[in-house]
């Protein structure tokens, strides 16, 4: 009987990384699906949110706020690398 769990790549870490990518992809697809449904639900109540979203995306104040958010997000995603080499 096999002594370890299956891995396709020589280094099992690569299998794990692919697993993370696929898990995130499933998550992204699920969110995208829900977002589309949400926009359709709002449209059925005469709230045309898609055009509003495009308009808000160009708002300078919002862009500044999201830049901070984005940097925080990147720090969280890449947190594991902040200890690399220490």
């Amino acid at each position: 009987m096999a002594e370890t769990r299956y891995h396709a790549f020589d280094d099992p870490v690569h299998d794990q990384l692919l697993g993370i990518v696929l898990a995130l992809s499933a998550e992204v697809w699920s969110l995208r699906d829900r977002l589309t449904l949400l926009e359709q639900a709002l449209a059925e109540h005469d709230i045309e949110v898609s055009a509003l979203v495009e308009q808000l995306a160009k708002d300078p104040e919002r862009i500044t706020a999201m830049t901070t958010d984005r940097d925080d997000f990147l720090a969280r995603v890449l947190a594991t690398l902040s200890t690399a080499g220490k």
Partner: protein
Amino acid sequence: MPQLPPVTQEHAARLDFLEGLRLYNYRRHVRGVLDAYDREVGTTRPPTMASAGERIKGQPLYQFAAAIQHHAQVMGWATAADSLREHADELDVLLASPPANPIGRLVLDGSLALPSYYTENDEAGLDDIHLVPGGYWRESLVGPIYERGGALYRTAWRVGYTASPPRALVAFAEGAPASDYRRILDLGCSFGGNTMAFRAAYPDAEEIVGLDLSAPALRWAHVSAEERGLAITYEQGDATAMQHEDSSFDLITGFLLAHEVTAETLDQILREAHRVLRPGGHIRFLDLPPYIELAPEVAFLQSFDNDGNGEKFWNDFLSSDFKATLQRAGFVNVADGPLDYDEPTYSGTAALMRTGEFRPENRWVTQADKPELRDG
């Protein structure tokens, strides 16, 4: 089958994603692996599965395809299980409360000792059969999980698994040599799909028995068969040591069983099958084709399941001479060949063989007879 609880948007989206991922992997990546192989070898075809494998397994695309297939399988079971977990109480009640006026029977044996080949990987925390967490025996909800996750494996999760019995099973059942079987035994029936196909094909048979080691699988098979109005006895037992009398069945069958047991266990099962089959009776298995029947590169892809899908006896069985194994057990008139069925949209059985093409060689019938008693 009983109606499964509804899925949430999130679970539906995940299952959709995984179904798309599988299809993309079969159609693009596996196809790409074979195209690259063809370009590389040209007309100098490697003669053996091993030599073909040497040319394929180093391909990065093959490694990605294999890893994606493995992850998709793990994620599929996890998503199916997650989608049912919040309905666990109602499903447990359904499974623990069989129909009030059943037309079939469920016979469980709480004292049955499960063989080690069946439980060892799960108990050791290694990849278990088809990568199902807990194997087929530990998880009480394995039936509903299989109903949803198995349908995903067939890339038809919205249709359901037993809700649409594969044409192959119907053709397999209808293709048995006689039409007047009285008692039929389905070995290793798991969730009962093959048994149901035989009941549908032989409505006048006195009794059709589905035998399996797994109580939770049989519970699901029982409620599914009752829901569909099919009279079947689902019975928990070990096919290597059955309680049935000698010569008590006319036909014995097994669907995707032979590759799930050790060679020694298969010998024992066939000896027992020979005992309980009446003289002149038939035995008929539906499984995968032996490697020798496949092109070397296809056989190599087929072998992915051994390690990549928790099929630890897959290579041993598909490399063996099953016909000779049947003959050793005393059967005669042994014959085999691809199953003739008509399902152009069905693209195969084994994981990396599903390239989106119709692959009839994925269903392989091996059949034999028990010799008639000689006069005098």
